[in-house]
């Protein structure tokens, strides 16, 4: 048993029999979650739990080929199935102008293939039947005649002159080029490299991985026959954005669309895009006039929905001999699959990869990127990546370790020597990102102290003498989260700002309505705490409404760790707006001027006379009562706001990992993992710790186990959880976490966001640890996933790149 598990156990012993919520704060602090009582009773409502009268079930026929022309489709046998209500093909959708839909990157994607299929498992037709088994049975009865085409699977060959063109649907498309992108100053960077004392270079690959939330994607569409109003229960992280896109795509009037995102069983970015299945369910309900449910199975989730990463990055660092990093340069080949389905702000086709300069003070930086189409599923931005910062952090943190290897320097010392210093914030990077605040060295020192860095290095030296393979890996990351501001950031033209509404009822209870939507992050608790902190109403008296477009204000949704930085700010500011009005009402009640009142959390008090005060509950009753209000003031106590962030927030952290590699089997065991995170002001430390833990497990998965691989024909080799390996409790250690607090200067409560920090920061720490363990073999780089076979090959001097 590890240390923290022991200490928890002894804590638990003193708290038996009662839930430790006795010190629950009015506002920030550790408190138990409001969502848990229903979830631990199995009384959550997930999309597949929705059961409407007369509801039908939809199943999708998918392509067995990665690239093939559709010669013909015969649905007659399926239509004859006694329980089948409809069979729809791409040709049917084309008649309605619905065969194609826009992606979130201004590309288009087939809802159902019409001309040809472009990736294995692409959607070809759907069946609607009375029950889920019959719908699946009928899929077997559809005959499709395919004419296979040459496939483009190897990203490095996608732009070869003889490569088959995938996107023949796009006019004037004669190759598989998707886009080019660059950032930084090429010439200035070249100049630094030209006179650098030391240059290191390496190809660093972030393979294709998948968020694989435990709940797969699905929807229940219900179009009311008379009013024409569509209600869509859907696994979406961004209900408002989805509603507007449906309005734009299907021509449905936006006020006749209601998206309900009920309890969501994990998202991690997988539930940001709009998938063909959602559109199929809507079409089916429109056509048949009954509610229709579509739930994908696990294979469909893994092989067809939003994947993540797939970047081949050539990285270079220019430095001095004594370890001052001067410049970073990278050239990236990005595999976007068959359609550009990246969910990133319009001006950022590579997401926020531009923060690849990391946490270091540089003279110059430059990146260029070529993105290509291949015969693989679309996606690219998912899996808690903070819009591609996973890739950026992995690149820079891997390259810094390679530099440390070449200079024979300690990787901790090298990082400490190059950090942006506290007095340099706000710090503008060489690629134009303005880091809001940071104090890196204390976080790094704290992590080193927690893990006992110096002692571990001694232990490692002893073990190396004995031929044992122990590695210590460090990662120091800076994230950029909380998109907008709206002038710079939009999704399909929708500005990335978030609405929030707060209403105080006459008895002083409150309801706050959010545009964002939890998928497990605990919004019901966190947002109630933010409002409680600002307005002094106890958390249990605040209802948090989310995930229903008819009952919440517009906003762009929960992804990119943006809920707390954007909607959290909105919640704080809308509460302050309500408080301002409450102060005016209080001045009338206490017959003093507004300026003579001071706010004590939960009440206004006359300055210098604590006996004269009114609580927020008193004020709420007065606001709704029959008595007089100050002149010109409307009754009621509520407000709304649309918060447009002034800048991103920049959480950071220092992670250190210890691994042991079995010299006989090459199996990697993560022995310890220390994570010190700084997400600014902490709202609920328990939830923050939980967010970090989850991301660390993701890191173990990506670094050691997870990969969406393909064979040469484009068959996905990771189509089940038997093939796509996700860590269980046996593969991960007991996490050790710590924190520092460096508030964001522009966020109203100083919070920065934490949802993705650990997913971003942990993979390089683990890979760096494994590579460190393999140092006796003269190894300075190995690619993820570091499965026993890849580690073994690497030990034999035969490292195989994963793609």
């Amino acid at each position, binding site marked *: 048993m590890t240390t923290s598990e022991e200490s928890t156990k002894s804590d638990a012993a003193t708290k038996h029999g009662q839930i430790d919520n006795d010190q629950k704060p009015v506002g920030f602090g550790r408190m138990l979650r409001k969502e848990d009582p229903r979830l631990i009773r199995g009384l959550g409502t997930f999309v597949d739990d929705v059961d409407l009268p007369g509801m039908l079930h939809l199943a999708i026929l998918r392509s067995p080929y990665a690239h093939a022309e559709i010669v013909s489709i015969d649905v007659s046998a399926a239509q004859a199935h006694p329980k089948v209500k409809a069979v729809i093909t791409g040709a049917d959708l084309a008649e309605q102008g619905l065969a194609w839909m826009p992606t979130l990157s201004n590309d288009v994607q087939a809802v159902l293939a019409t001309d040809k299929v472009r990736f294995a498992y692409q959607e070809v037709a759907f069946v609607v039947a009375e029950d889920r088994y019959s719908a699946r049975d009928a899929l077997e009865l559809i005959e499709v005649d395919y004419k296979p085409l040459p496939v483009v699977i190897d990203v490095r060959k996608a732009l070869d002159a003889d490569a088959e063109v995938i996107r023949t649907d796009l006019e004037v498309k004669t190759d598989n080029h998707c886009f080019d992108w660059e950032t930084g100053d090429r010439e200035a960077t070249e100049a630094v490299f030209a006179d650098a004392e030391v240059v290191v270079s390496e190809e660093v690959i972030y393979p294709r991985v998948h968020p694989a939330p435990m709940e797969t994607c699905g929807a229940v569409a219900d179009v009311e026959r008379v009013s024409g109003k569509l209600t869509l229960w859907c696994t979406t992280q961004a209900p408002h954005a989805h509603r507007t896109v449906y309005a734009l795509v299907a021509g449905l009037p936006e006020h006749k669309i209601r998206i309900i995102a009920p309890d969501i069983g994990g998202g991690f970015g997988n539930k940001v895009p709009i998938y063909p299945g959602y559109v199929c369910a809507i079409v089916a309900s429109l056509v048949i006039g009954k509610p229709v449910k579509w739930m994908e199975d696990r294979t469909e989730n893994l092989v067809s929905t939003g994947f993540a990463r797939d970047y081949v990055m050539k990285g270079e660092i220019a430095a001095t001999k004594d370890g001052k990093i001067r410049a970073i340069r990278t050239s990236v080949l990005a595999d976007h699959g068959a359609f550009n389905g990246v969910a990133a702000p319009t001006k950022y086709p590579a997401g926020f990869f531009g923060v690849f300069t990391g946490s270091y003070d540089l003279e110059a930086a430059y990146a260029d990127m070529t993105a290509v189409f291949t015969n693989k599923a679309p996606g690219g931005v998912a899996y808690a990546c903070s819009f591609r910062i996973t890739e950026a952090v992995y690149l820079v943190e891997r390259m810094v370790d390679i530099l440390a290897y070449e200079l024979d320097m300690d990787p901790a010392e090298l990082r400490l020597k190059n950090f942006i210093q506290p007095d340099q914030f706000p710090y503008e990077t060489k690629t134009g990102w303005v880091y809001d605040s940071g104090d890196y060295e204390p976080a790094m020192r704290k992590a080193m102290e927690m893990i006992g860095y110096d002692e571990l290095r001694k232990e490692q030296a002893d073990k190396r003498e004995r031929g044992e393979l122990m590695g210590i890996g460090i990662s120091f990351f800076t994230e950029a989260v909380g998109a907008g501001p709206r002038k710079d950031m939009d999704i399909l033209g929708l500005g990335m700002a978030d609405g929030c509404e707060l209403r105080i009822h006459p008895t002083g209870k409150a309801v706050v309505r959010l545009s964002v939507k939890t998928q497990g992050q605990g919004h019901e608790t966190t947002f109630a705490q933010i409002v409680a902190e600002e307005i002094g109403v106890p958390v249990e008296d605040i209802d948090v409404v989310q995930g229903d477009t008819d009952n919440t204000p517009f906003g762009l949704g929960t992804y990119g760790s943006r809920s707390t930085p954007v909607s959290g700010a909105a919640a704080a500011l809308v509460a302050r707006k309500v408080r301002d009005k409450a102060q005016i009402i209080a001045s009338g009640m206490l017959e003093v001027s507004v300026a003579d009142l001071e706010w004590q959390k939960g009440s206004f008090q006359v300055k210098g006379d604590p006996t004269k005060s009114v609580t927020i509950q008193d004020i709420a009753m007065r606001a709704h009562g029959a008595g007089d209000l100050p002149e010109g003031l409307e009754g009621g106590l509520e407000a709304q706001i649309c918060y447009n962030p002034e800048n991103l927030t920049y959480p950071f952290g220092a992670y250190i990992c210890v691994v042991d590699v079995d010299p006989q089997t090459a199996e990697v065991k993560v022995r310890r993992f220390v994570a010190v995170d700084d997400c600014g002001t902490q709202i609920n430390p328990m939830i923050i710790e939980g967010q970090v833990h*989850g991301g660390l497990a993701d890191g173990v998965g990506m670094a050691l186990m997870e990969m969406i691989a393909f064979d040469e024909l484009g068959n996905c080799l990771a189509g089940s959880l038997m093939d796509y390996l996700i860590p269980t409790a046996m593969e991960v250690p007991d996490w050790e976490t710590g924190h520092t607090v460096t508030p964001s200067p522009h966020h109203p409560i100083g919070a920065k966001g934490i949802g993705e920090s650990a997913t971003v920061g942990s993979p390089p720490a683990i890979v760096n640890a494994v590579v460190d363990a393999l140092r006796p073999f003269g190894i300075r780089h190995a690619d993820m996933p570091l499965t026993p076979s890849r580690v073994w090959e690497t030990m034999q001097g035969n490292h195989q790149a994963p793609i």
Partner: protein
Amino acid sequence: MQVSMEINGEQRSDEIEPRMLLVHYLRDVVRLTGTHWGCDTSNCGTCVVLIDGEPVKSCTTLAAMASGHRVTTVEGLEVDGVLDPVQEGFMACHGLQCGFCTPGMMLTARALLNENADPSAEEIREAISGQICRCTGYSTIVRSIQWTAMAEDEAREQSVYLAASGTGSQA
């Protein structure tokens, strides 16, 4: 075909297709939707229920195979308005986030603690190793189960004490 089983203490019989999986029977026929479905291949364990007290993956069990047996789902953990200590432990130690894997995790925990009242962290990890959680990273689940073990241990000591002092009926 006809299946009959005791579910959370209530006997019931239904006419179903012979191929119907237990998870679909519980969710779609009995309408107990706390049992979730996540993978089809027995890997994720969101569908775990107890059959005669043993954790079983209901996505790869035919409803017919449970006929004549005793099935416990997450809805059966709370009895007469009193939560199972496992449920309290998961709330107390933040053992859940999205809540999707939670019913299966709690049922496995219940079965483990019934067999082993004081499991080590390693034993807990092994017991839940057939189940996947994407949110928590498992540490808080381990702590939740340890919390439960402690709470149940103290409750047992308490009841022994109360019984010895003749005041047990008040407990």
